């Protein structure tokens, strides 16, 4: 691992652009560590096999190569290039599965029916596994055999990460997050300073590190560094509801670049920070911020990292708001604006919380124009799964973003709203690139701006 000192020199952050990431490198280092090729591939195979379970094996055995998943994937639909066919993205891993782990593995090795996977092959596939897959899961809905292709891509990333084959920028931010606690430089100290600055500026109380609290809130570094208003909005809503809540400097970063890069160990570390902090605060609820993969990482995989059921509930902010709206505790002024809602994939399609945001929007009394398609089969914004951090993927991402722009235009709504800061950042980058007149808004901020009645 590179010495901490020169990490900032080697991978300087670029936080002044619409899209926060590491600066565009002159020469790309898409390969980590100086390890001989055989060792690198050995690591990949060992870790690929280690995490393999019965379900993934079943998926590897069931594909009939019908090609339906291609038509569901925005990368194929936007480019028409067959290499972006979702099931093709895991071809080397299916090859490895048959050789190393399947029921006929012995004979596949003996008769060499499937060639051994090579580093060059994985290197070539890096672009397919990372740049052109936001792990949005749309292909999984289109597959007639119901193979959850998205889960296989995440699994494939485990092998890639262990082989040290993560794209330059994604690796840099992931490594920074593991070491500093935040991928984009929002270290605990920076976080603490910002909270104090925001509390003064907006004359609002933002508790930090209360020894005991019912609710622990968290933030994504994109919000901390680019959309601080979301922090203020969270505070406003929590205080309005009169809840006993706090941020925790030992567990505030909701993003999980271990998950996005495929480094399983880091993913566990990042999740455990939030879990330990919440347990330390004795809270009964952990509220995840407006972030997509954070929800998947903690809501659905956090307990498995912890090894047993979590002693507290986990909610995405949109679920939290919807619950309080339904409970009548959260009254909102009717804003009447015409809006269209962009469903973050990890919350709606992958997370199952599609309805929450719509309940909140109904309470806000907005004129909702649904995009077509939307909800569980929405088109992905193209920036998720770490793709937005990779400069090499930009041309591809802009092509895919056009699908989204068309959808928003066709919805005839004034403004798009979403509940994921990474989508929001992707929209901002797209807006800047295409000089588009539509600006993405945050659901949380809309709620915070339209709170009804005095805060309790």
């Amino acid at each position, binding site marked *: 691992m590179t010495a901490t000192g020169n990490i900032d020199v080697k991978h300087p952050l670029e936080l002044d652009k619409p899209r926060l990431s590491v600066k565009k490198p002159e020469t790309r280092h898409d390969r980590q560590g100086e390890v001989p090729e055989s060792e690198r591939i050995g690591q990949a195979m060992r870790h690929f096999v280690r995490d393999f379970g019965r379900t993934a094996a079943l998926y590897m055995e069931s594909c009939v190569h019908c090609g339906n998943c291609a038509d569901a994937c925005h990368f194929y639909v936007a480019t028409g290039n067959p290499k972006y066919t979702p099931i093709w993205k895991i071809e080397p891993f299916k090859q490895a599965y048959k050789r190393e782990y399947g029921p006929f593995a*012995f004979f596949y090795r003996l008769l060499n029916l499937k060639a051994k996977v090579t580093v060059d092959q994985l290197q070539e596939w890096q672009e397919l596994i990372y740049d052109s897959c936001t792990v949005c899961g749309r292909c999984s809905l289109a597959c007639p055999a119901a193979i959850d292709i998205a889960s296989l891509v995440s699994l494939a990333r485990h092998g890639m990460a262990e082989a040290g084959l993560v794209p330059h920028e994604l690796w840099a931010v992931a490594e920074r997050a593991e070491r500093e606690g935040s991928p984009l430089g929002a270290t605990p100290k920076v976080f603490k300073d910002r909270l104090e600055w925001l509390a003064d500026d907006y004359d609002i109380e933002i508790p930090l590190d209360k020894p005991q609290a019912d609710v622990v809130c968290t933030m994504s570094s994109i919000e901390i560094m680019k959309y601080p208003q979301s922090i203020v909005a969270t505070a406003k809503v929590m205080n309005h509801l009169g809840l006993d809540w706090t941020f925790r400097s030992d567990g505030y970063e909701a993003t999980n670049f271990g998950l996005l890069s495929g480094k399983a160990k880091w993913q566990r570390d990042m999740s455990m920070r939030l879990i330990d902090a919440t347990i330390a605060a004795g809270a009964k609820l952990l509220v995840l911020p407006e972030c997509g993969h954070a929800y998947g990482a903690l809501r659905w995989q956090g307990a498995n990292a912890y090894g047993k059921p979590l002693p507290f509930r986990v909610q995405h902010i949109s679920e939290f708001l919807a619950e309080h709206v339904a409970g009548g505790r959260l009254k909102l002024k009717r804003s009447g604006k015409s809006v269209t809602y962009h469903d973050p994939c990890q919350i709606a399609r992958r997370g199952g919380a599609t309805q929450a945001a719509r309940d909140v929007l109904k309470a806000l009394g907005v004129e909702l124009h649904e995009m077509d398609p939307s909800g569980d089969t929405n088109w992905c914004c193209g920036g998720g799964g770490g793709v937005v951090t990779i400069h090499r993927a930009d041309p591809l991402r802009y092509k895919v973003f056009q699908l989204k722009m068309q959808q928003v235009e066709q919805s005839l709504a004034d403004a798009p709203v979403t509940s994921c800061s990474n989508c929001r950042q992707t929209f901002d980058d797209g807006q800047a690139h295409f000089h588009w007149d539509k600006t993405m808004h945050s659901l949380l901020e809309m709620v915070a701006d339209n709170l009804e009645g005095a805060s309790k």
Partner: protein
Amino acid sequence: MDLHGTVGEALKQQGISRRAFLKFCTALASMMALPPQAAAAMAQALAKARRPSVIWLPFQECTGCTESLTRSNSPTVENMIFNMISLDYHETLFAAAGDAAEAAREKAMKDNFGKYLLLVDGSVATGLDGAYSCIGGVSNVQMLEEAAKGAAAIVAIGTCAAFGGLPKASPNPTGAAPVAALVRDKPVINVSGCPPIPVVITGVLVHYLTFGSLPELDELGRPKAFYGETIHDRCYRRPFYDQGKFAKTFDDHGARNGWCLYELGCKGPVTYNACATLKWNGGTSFPIESGHGCLGCSEPDFWDKGGFYKALPTGNWGGGKTLAAAAAAGVAIGAAAAALARKRQADIAKEK
């Protein structure tokens, strides 16, 4: 009676008029599906043809074929043949017996060496080098070899002679073998069937006598004129097969209405013979018409094809036990493969 004059003279001596003979040829031409004009040509050629000497060798046979050929109360077209040929040896039909019969046979074979027609009825017992079946101390195998040497052509009458028939059915204790298996250097016409249709035997002999050559044979050596098509193709119940109307049992509604007997084991589709067109007992009927499925008797090893009442498509694949064993083996190897994979996984996990 001059045994070896022309066929015409023989007929005249027996008081058979030319008109009767022309009528016989017309009927035969129609049965052999030859063009009508061929009848006149046949009559002339046959009349002038030398009256062949015919030797009928009975080996392991049940005399069913002889019965089929000769049984008739009045002189019918079928058995006219006997007036045309000089049957020099037939164990059952001969008045003579013992040495006299054997002497007649040897004399005929010597006199007409190379010109007589050898008719074999029954399969040849090769077990215990022929000891299972002998005539006058001479084993079938030797007798066939000896007789075949001087034969112009050999006609194997019946499935036993043609393919081994019942004696050859497993376990084939006597080592029964078809004629064609033992006689390789002479043309053998297989007139299979158990028994074959009389007119088929007559047709083959007349064809040989008239044209002096073998009729066109299929790959099993059977004349195509009679064995060119399957019973199924010419069966009058075929429309019921095509409509999917099948009899389920021998006396159900379907059977009473003459529906197809496929489900009751009929082997019509895989049996080549002329029963459906020429029919039996002078055109009265044939097995299917009388309500029973075809047994496939003109096909080799028809006894060992899995049973007359077992429907054609059913395989005989040895029952469930072998499959149960295969299933157990599959589960075992599957479990082993999975265990191996889990062990590798555990080892890797321990490494970290």
